């Protein structure tokens, strides 16, 4: 499914239409910011200011297109790769990086942003989304959820249990699978021999969609449709977005060991930003002035991230003890005193 080809030309589709001009412009703006954020975070990782950064360079359309399809009250369940989705969802960019900075496991209050903590154990947060939307329905609230997972993650048993629960309970969850063709060094054809990953939906009685993940308009359109259906009781869905991880798995990966740079170039020519920009310009939806503003917005986000991260956080070792239980148990209280004493002596 594709609505904008790699040359920025519109493509007709029998059942899907592209979002309106305002949404197209917003998709592009979010991608410009997302890309700049990816670059900035990768730089910080190179400088050692982040312990690690899994870049989503090249996957901006899939993340932005999915997230902007959400309604105000909906939840996002991201994985480690999904910083751009989170920033687009409204999470403070610096708090998005807290995990990678090594400051804490999650830098934000999930309730505040309606965004679950970034999930590292693959596919394990997918069932959380099913449970959360089930609970919301029980409480009479119209809440849907978008789960972000990778192609590799669809091989995990947890993914399949979540798909089945969502389908059987008919909860409004869309599983957006970013098929970026690699799970670290393992190509997707070693994960699955199904015709597409979207086919996995069939066995669970769900709808499955396959979309050009570098076409933000198409991703937005399909995820919006899937969310609307799910909300209306039509059941959950898997949306497979075909995209590509341009950068290494993380800054400490060695992609030359397992993939050809020609493949990277092939995908770089299918860049999600370039094609939407072409369309927006050709159809005079945005002009140089507006594009300049997007660039400046992106630069402002990057500068803020850089400046705020330049200030070394003072982490209080006492925070190790404060949120393990609702109240600190006596034995832990004693370890807390002992550590304080240890630190006084040095």
């Amino acid at each position, binding site marked *: 499914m594709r609505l904008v080809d790699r040359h920025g030309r519109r493509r007709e589709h029998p059942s899907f239409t592209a979002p309106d001009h305002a949404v197209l412009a917003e998709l592009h703006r979010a991608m410009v910011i997302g890309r700049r954020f990816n670059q900035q975070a990768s730089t910080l990782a190179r400088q*050692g200011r982040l*312990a*690690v950064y*899994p870049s989503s360079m090249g996957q901006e359309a899939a993340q932005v297109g999915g997230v902007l399809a959400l309604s105000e009250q909906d939840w996002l369940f991201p*994985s*480690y*790769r999904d910083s751009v989705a989170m920033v687009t969802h409204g999470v403070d960019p610096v708090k998005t990086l807290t*995990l*990678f*900075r*090594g*400051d*804490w*496991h999650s830098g934000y209050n999930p309730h505040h942003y309606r965004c679950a903590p970034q999930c*590292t*154990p*693959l596919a394990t947060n997918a069932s959380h989304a099913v449970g959360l939307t089930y609970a919301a329905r029980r409480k009479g609230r119209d809440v849907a959820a978008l789960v972000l997972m990778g192609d*590799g*993650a669809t*091989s*995990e*048993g*947890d993914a399949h249990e979540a798909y089945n629960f969502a389908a059987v309970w008919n909860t409004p969850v869309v599983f957006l699978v970013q098929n970026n063709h690699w*799970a*670290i*060094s*393992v190509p997707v054809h*070693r*994960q*699955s021999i199904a015709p597409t990953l979207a086919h996995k939906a069939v066995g669970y009685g769900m709808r499955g969609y396959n979309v050009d993940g570098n076409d933000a308009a198409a991703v937005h359109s399909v995820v919006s449709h899937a969310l609307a259906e799910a909300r209306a009781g039509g059941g959950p869905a898997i949306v497979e977005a075909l995209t590509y991880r341009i950068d290494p*798995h*993380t800054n*400490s*990966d*060695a992609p030359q*060991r*397992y993939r050809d740079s020609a493949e990277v170039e092939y995908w770089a020519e299918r860049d999600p930003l370039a094609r939407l920009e072409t369309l927006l310009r050709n159809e005079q939806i945005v002009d140089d002035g507006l594009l300049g503003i997007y660039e400046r917005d992106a630069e402002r986000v990057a500068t803020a991230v850089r400046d705020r991260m330049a200030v070394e*956080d003072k*982490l209080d*070792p006492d*925070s*190790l*003890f404060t949120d*393990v239980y609702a109240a600190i148990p006596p*034995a*832990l209280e004693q*370890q807390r005193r002992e*550590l304080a004493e*240890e*630190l006084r002596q040095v």
Partner: protein
Amino acid sequence: MAHTPPTPPTGTETAATASGAAASAAAAQGAAEVTMGAALNRALHDAVAEDPDVLVYGEDVGPLGGVFRVTDGLTSTFGEERCFDSPLAESGIVGTAIGMAMYGLRPVVEMQFDAFAYPAFEQVVSHLAKMRNRTRGAVPLPVVIRVPYGGGIGGVEHHSDSSEAYYTHTPGLRVVTPGTPADAYSMLREAIACDDPVVFLEPKRRYWSRQSVDLPVRTEPMERSVVRRPGSDVTLIAYGPMVETALEAAEQAAAEGRDVEVVDLRQLAPFDDATVAASVRRTGRAVVVHEASVFGGYGAEVAARLTEQCFHYLEAPVLRVGGLDVPYPPPKLEEHHLPGVDRILAAMDRLQWESEWVEGHG
């Protein structure tokens, strides 16, 4: 994410490039410095070369050579049939290994990190550990599960767990962990040759630790604990990543006039009571150290056994030094969690030396 860790002091690429070929070249020239990562790599190469039933698989163990490069060169040397990437599913990895072992293969599988082995827990506990027993000996399972474990590398969450107690509490599994490169080689070879399932815990922060050793090497049988450093005042009991730390603590204690014996447990389960008990009967004092949280940790078992077996020889209670009883903290706080030399020395200071002095001179 396989957040392959930020570069440790000696450099991630050290382990990455320390291939089996490099190790053999070094061995040819006499005792050479070998990292633990290279020793493990060489053990896999040698085991695959020697026994056609041995095969290696898991996540990213093929062309990439594993995120720590422990399987480096296996696929290019021996081909896809002997070392390959599987679908990304730990339960499936261990489950299929069980099936392979039922039919005569000797699979060596890798869990990418400690915490990513948890999806396989069902297979490990309900099948791997029990098959021999359920079938009254008819179906042994010679499976090795390699797990890089423990912290100290600045890994983000789920990359630093010390999960040994989950396994040692499961009868039917052998749980081993090397503390030196020589042991890493020898114990992995032994684990692969062993007819019991072995959870082979690799102290990831020690992948870059070096030792002068000729490979191949055979050290003591893995089920035996060894005295790494003789001493007469107190027994310091350690394993895996803490062996090096314990030896360092012993050095420092020596400078302060205390003679510390260090025991490296090596095989955590089944337990070698004789070696540790003999040591503690000699010294009269014992401290157990591990990275894992102390409560319900492996040290509790060691302390209990020593109390049962050495009660009348003990001058002080057996003490435990370990991680705090908190979930593994983020990189910037892990130094406060992990036991280091200072905490070990402080524990040794608490072994009631004064009362002995008073008695001795009273």
